[in-house]
């Protein structure tokens, strides 16, 4: 019986993740006064793409084909470690947050290699930008998780979010607020949302993530889109666990609240995208340095208490 709940949580994450981009798009459409795409649009897209046969350029090698598969596999594994509604998943172990960071790094590395393998100068540019921003985003995320480990005195993500209760928010509110802000900025940058990158743009000079996946088609594009949705779920779940310390003892109640919080995070991303203009490319590192500063401050505060 003990394995059923974690498995249900995992399946729920896999099934519900493509809803998040749908919610973001609906919120943006609401702000723009449009009706917008259906909430389930990404499910339709994935289904359509999976029916198609992929097309490969003659210059590409196996690296190009392996990229999306490795990327999706890394994200799928990381979701198996991530706690759901403050409850441990089935792969949780001590120090798993470092494992998570490396999985995300592996996914990024595979995507970048696949982009470089196409031999297009254009995709190389996107790969270069992706790595440049990762240099700033990863330390911010790592320091944030380290500060969280320090606040809670736990070294596994499940342990951290298990200890994170309303009482902790009362005594360490400044640190936790800083961390939430830092994670939100990292979420925006890592998922190529608006202040860092525009997921809808196809203007070659400004794209970052989109430009790297231009040559993928068919099921492989479906893997990439699904992987992006799962990554959004990953960061959203971290923030939802932060702002929603576990209250009730019932599993169903916690899960319901958590899913509501996830929808709230998606709506917040949509609102941010609607009210903020995209930053100039050279300003994006500043935003990520801000996230880094938040994480550092949180860590110093926690050390100095």
């Amino acid at each position, binding site marked *: 019986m003990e394995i059923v709940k974690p498995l249900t949580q995992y399946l729920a994450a896999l099934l519900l993740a493509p809803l998040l981009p749908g919610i973001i798009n609906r919120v943006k459409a609401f702000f723009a006064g449009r009706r917008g795409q259906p909430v389930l649009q990404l499910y339709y897209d994935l289904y359509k793409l999976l029916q198609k046969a992929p097309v490969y350029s003659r210059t590409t090698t196996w690296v190009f084909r392996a990229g999306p598969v490795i990327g999706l596999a890394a994200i799928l594994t990381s979701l198996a470690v991530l706690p759901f509604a403050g409850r441990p998943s089935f792969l949780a172990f001590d120090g798993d947050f470092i494992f998570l960071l490396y999985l995300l790094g592996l996914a990024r590395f595979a995507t970048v290699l696949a982009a470089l393998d196409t031999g297009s100068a254009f995709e190389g540019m996107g790969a270069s930008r992706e790595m440049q921003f990762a240099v700033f985003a990863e330390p911010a995320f790592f320091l944030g998780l380290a500060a969280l480990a320090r606040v809670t005195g736990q070294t596994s993500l499940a342990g951290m979010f298990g200890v994170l209760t309303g009482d902790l928010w009362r005594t360490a509110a*400044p640190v936790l607020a800083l961390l939430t802000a830092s994670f939100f900025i990292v979420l925006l940058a890592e998922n190529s949302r608006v202040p860092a990158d525009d997921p809808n743009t196809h203007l070659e000079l400004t794209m970052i993530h989109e430009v790297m996946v231009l040559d993928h088609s068919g099921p492989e594009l479906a893997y990439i889109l699904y992987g992006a949705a799962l990554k959004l779920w990953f960061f959203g779940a971290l923030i939802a666990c932060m702002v929603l310390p576990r209250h009730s003892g019932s599993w169903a109640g916690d899960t319901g609240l958590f899913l509501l919080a996830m929808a709230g995070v998606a709506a917040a991303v949509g609102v941010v995208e609607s009210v903020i203009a995209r930053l100039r490319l050279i300003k994006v590192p500043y935003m990520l*340095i801000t996230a880094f*500063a938040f994480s550092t*401050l949180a860590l*110093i*505060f926690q050390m*100095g*208490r």
Partner: protein
Amino acid sequence: MHTFAELIIVFVILLDLALAVTGSLSSCIRLVAVQGVVAGILPLLAGSGTPHARTAAFAAFIILLKGVVFPWLLTRARDRSGARKDVEPLITYPASIMLCLGAFIASSWLGSRLPLPETNVAWIVPASLATIFTGFLLITTRSKAITQVLGYLVIENGIYIFGLALFVEQPLMVELAILLDVFVAVFVMGIAIFHISREFDHIDTAELSELSDWRRGEYGK
């Protein structure tokens, strides 16, 4: 209550960081004003129990001076000098923010070493030292005369918070005297900036270190 005071301290530090990265002169003036107001609220929260009537009146006076009078004087000085709208830093913004973070790390180390009386609110000493350092940073790495006044005000905010760390019931007369000094200083600097810009057509301090006749002679060669 103390968690709230801690939140305010964190807010003061975030304002320090924001000052280090803000490029626009008018938002710099606004940020300094906000920091002054926030620092003015702090004594009402740092003491235990309900605040004294004298403390409340004093806080109201500080908020009025730092939140309304100083920004008004500085905005007037900026408009009259016809300066460009950005602060023209001598180092890049990421370097500024890194220096700020380094200063905060150093000041939290220093704060734990200083033999000070026990304070009610955590981080108040590191925050005040970091604010003082941010003021120095603004003075040394920005090239306009008006940002030097801003840096001076930020230093004053830091000293004020440092004073709070030492005495929750601070000697108000001392603080009032400092405020009067600062007020006169800002007033005089506002006039001085106006005169400098009328005389030299700019308020760039790097240019002010050279004599204008000597420079003209150099160009004449």
